[in-house]
């Protein structure tokens, strides 16, 4: 019975625990952390089990026993299985790592509420990935948005700009979500269904093309906002920059990934019957926008001094790589995109964790100037940052290299030589901002007068992520086969 309900449990457990966690009194705040740990851990195991159970096929789970397409359906196929594992896994790791940082940046009294929002976000993101119903997706989208906003605003204890960043994210996110649901409305009006597979079947048959196209456009535009695709990404640097460090680590690793998955699901499963239109969308919108994201993000990162904002800008570029893969529209391209979804979650998750560790030791926000020489006094954290950074720029034998190679191969298979050259160029450029960080940490004299100790609660999960970066760079078969399955699943329909 447990196994049968796995798809739902993955989502429901964090959501329910969140409600309970919110009730925890502040003197028992450690309990709140434990509950979050428990729920994300259970979710992760459930996601893993679910993935194995769905190996080679797909599982359709009807919520409440109502059969699709009238009821809401959760689908586990190659794509959603991989992404749920990535999201829940990174969420679990971030939860382990979050304790010292949360306590450092947020007052004791608020801790239980933060962990409640934490679990809400995780549960909602997982629901986002599992669902096969377009409107249900909107609901989960909003849940994750609102809880993320709450968490980001908690950064106000350190810097009041967090409030403004949270407000902006709230407003922009709400506009995006509303665009999305408006698109859903149009499609519903034309087909009478909200189930993704059903939509895919019925859309090509609709005679009046205009509402369908408008609907598509709104849906895609809405998701672009959530996925922080250039140029509607403006909320991301401030939001990730001013949020509490643990929150940034969580969001950077998982939030945008789930949205990009949704984009893929929309473009290739729901809209697959409208091949030529989707093709136009991909070539004229997704590809150019991705390239702009890649370069804007990389160049802005080079100029950025604050470390968290730097990494946020870098994330914009990395999201560009993922959407570029998706934008190719081929199975190979989508597979490359998914490979990077998994790898980047590890890379950026690791880097944000490491920067958080540095900031924790410093007692204030880390930027290029104040991290000088920290490599000598915090070797464990600094070397993890180095390894993850090398993975970011794509050093062979790291996960990042695998992503880059597969992406370039996919681009070349589609014969977009210019784009391939641009991707390689941006890769070379990213070395510049990484090297600024490396030089600051390793090449400058150690800071005097600072008592710095490294917190095992921080560097242990950090090093697990770092070692995964290396392992997946040497034996990438798990990620590549899962990504291939994901691409295939997206291209050939959403189960049921």
């Amino acid at each position, binding site marked *: 019975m447990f196994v049968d309900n796995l798809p739902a449990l993955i989502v429901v457990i964090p959501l329910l625990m969140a409600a309970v966690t919110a009730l925890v009194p502040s003197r028992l705040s450690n309990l709140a952390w434990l509950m979050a740990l428990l729920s994300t851990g259970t979710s992760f195991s459930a996601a893993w089990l679910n993935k194995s159970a769905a190996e080679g096929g797909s599982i359709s789970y009807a919520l409440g026993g109502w059969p699709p397409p009238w009821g809401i359906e959760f689908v586990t196929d190659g794509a959603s299985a991989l992404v749920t594992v990535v999201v829940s896994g990174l969420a679990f790791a971030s939860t382990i790592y979050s304790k010292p940082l949360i306590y450092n940046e947020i007052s004791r009294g608020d801790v239980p509420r933060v962990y409640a929002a934490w679990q809400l976000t995780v549960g909602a993101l997982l629901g986002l990935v599992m669902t096969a119903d377009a409107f249900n997706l909107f609901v989960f989208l909003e849940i994750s948005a609102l809880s993320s906003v709450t968490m980001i605003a908690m950064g106000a204890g350190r810097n009041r700009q967090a409030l403004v960043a949270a407000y902006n994210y709230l407003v922009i996110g709400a506009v995006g979500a509303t665009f999305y649901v408006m698109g859903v409305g149009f499609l519903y009006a034309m087909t009478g269904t909200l189930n993704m597979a059903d939509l895919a079947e019925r859309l090509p048959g609709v005679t009046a093309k205009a509402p369908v196209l408008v609907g598509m456009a709104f849906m895609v535009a809405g998701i672009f906002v959530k996925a922080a695709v250039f140029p509607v990404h403006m909320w991301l640097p401030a939001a990730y920059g001013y949020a509490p460090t643990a929150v940034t680590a969580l969001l950077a690793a998982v939030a945008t990934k789930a949205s990009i998955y949704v984009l893929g699901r929309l473009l290739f499963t729901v809209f697959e019957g409208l091949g030529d239109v989707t093709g136009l969308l991909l070539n004229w919108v997704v590809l150019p926008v991705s390239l702009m994201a890649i370069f804007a993000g990389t160049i802005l990162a080079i100029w950025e001094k604050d470390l968290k904002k730097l990494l946020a800008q870098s994330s914009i570029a990395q999201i560009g790589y993922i959407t570029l893969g998706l934008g190719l529209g081929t199975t190979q391209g989508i597979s490359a995109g998914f490979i990077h979804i998994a790898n980047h979650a590890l890379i950026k998750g690791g880097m944000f964790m490491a920067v958080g560790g540095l900031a924790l030791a410093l007692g204030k926000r880390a930027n290029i100037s104040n991290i000088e020489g920290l490599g000598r006094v915090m070797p464990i954290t600094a070397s993890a940052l180095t390894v993850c950074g*090398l993975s970011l720029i*794509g*050093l*062979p*034998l790291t996960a990042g*290299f*695998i992503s880059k*190679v*597969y992406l*370039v*191969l996919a681009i*070349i298979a589609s014969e977009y030589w210019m784009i*391939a*050259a641009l991707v*390689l*160029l941006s*890769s*070379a450029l990213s*070395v510049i901002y990484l*090297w600024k960080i490396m*030089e600051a940490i*390793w*090449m400058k004299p150690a800071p005097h007068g600072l008592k710095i100790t490294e917190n095992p609660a921080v560097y242990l999960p950090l090093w697990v992520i770092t070692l995964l970066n290396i392992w997946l*760079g*040497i*034996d*990438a*078969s798990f990620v*590549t086969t899962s990504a291939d399955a994901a691409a295939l699943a997206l291209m050939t329909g959403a189960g049921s």
Partner: protein
Amino acid sequence: MMEVSTAMWVGLFAPLVVAVLIPALAVRSNWRDSAGPLGAIISFIAALTVAQDVLAGNTPELVLVTIAEGLDLSFRVTPLGAVFGCVASGLWIAAALYSTGYMRGNHEKHQTRFAVCYAVAVHAAMAIAWSGNLMVLFIFYEILTFSTYPLVTHKESQEAIRAGRLYMGILVGTSVILLLPAVIWVWMVAGTLDFTHGGVLAGKLAPEYAPWMVALFAFGVGKAALMPIHRWLPAAMVAPTPVSALLHAVAVVKAGVFTILMVMVYIFGIDFLQVTKASQWLVWLAGFTILASSVIAITKDDLKARLAYSTVSQLSYIVLGAALATSSAVEGGVIHIVMHASAKITLFFCAGAIYVGAHLTKISELDGLGPRMPLVFVAFFLGALSIIGIPPMGGSWSKFLLMMGAVEAGMSIMVAVLAISSLLNVYYLLEPVFRAFFRPVNTEIKINSPVLTVLPPVATAILSLVLFFAIGYLTPFSQMMVTP
């Protein structure tokens, strides 16, 4: 003697084991500093075993792990790879001993970090030598770049950091923007990246594209220091001399020209190059580099800078050999890898010994130093002779073969280039020796030479002499490469 497959494991991983052991042994500096030479000796024995097997006509193979479908971390030793492997591991023995003497004599900091990065770099060089396909070579080529960065910036001064940026900028920039696309292009056209005798491109690549592909490789392999990508080499002189010896004789630059030779012989194929004349333009560029850098070398008063430009010049000898694409030329290039390595490491060892012993870096300051540091300057003299190409020093063979190759290719003007280069070499390499011995003896200066900075250069100088007579051991390998 060990079995061949064991030898491959040992040769590849002994340096890595050393790298891991060194921090553990750091408490006792004598133990730590013995790990390098011991590891080097073990790797060298392994490399010799492998080379013997290759001589017997076999191709030792090792597949480590499958990274992803179609991407294997596989190793297959070609004759060229066997030679390079022996050069890398053999000279590491001398370099490991020497660096101990140098670092201690100079009271350098961070000796543990230095030794670890050194060992990792040698490991990367061995992996490059024995790589089975272009992707594996690329992977370890990058690892070599990153593992030598801490070595170049060892002093951590502003100058070192700037040099490090230039180093990374040029090497990573060229490899990502030019070399990686070239590798991908080969894969797309030929369907394979495996190094194959006779090349993989014949019949697959349209002849008009061939020169472009050659260009991508020639400029993409920044470690071969072809002009105008050579700037990183003189900048890297800011590193301690054991690093320069490693960079300029053993690992980095040889990995560069090794890559070019491998690509020319085992990816393009000598016949394909001859038919398409794809590397003609490279002959001219190599010739230009040879002369231009020799001229620049003459203007340098700093000894290491002069040796750096000499290296740029000598590397282009090997590139020239590859570009001429005739059997004698390629043989000459291969032999020159060995000869130049042995001679250049001698020269750099001497430069370092002079720095540690007398605290001098400029050639103009070397007047009358000869009788005070006789062994060092005699070693320098022998090394210089080998580079100039005078029998009975080893370098004469490679120069001879290269000249023959130029004639074979119908580009006799290159003979003149090589000859002029030798004359320039005479000037700028023998000037230090001349000043040392033919000026009034410098009696005031205090000399304090650690033994370990003097013995290695003497040993490698003698090696250069021995190699002249031992040419018979090298030619079978180069012959195997060029015979169809």
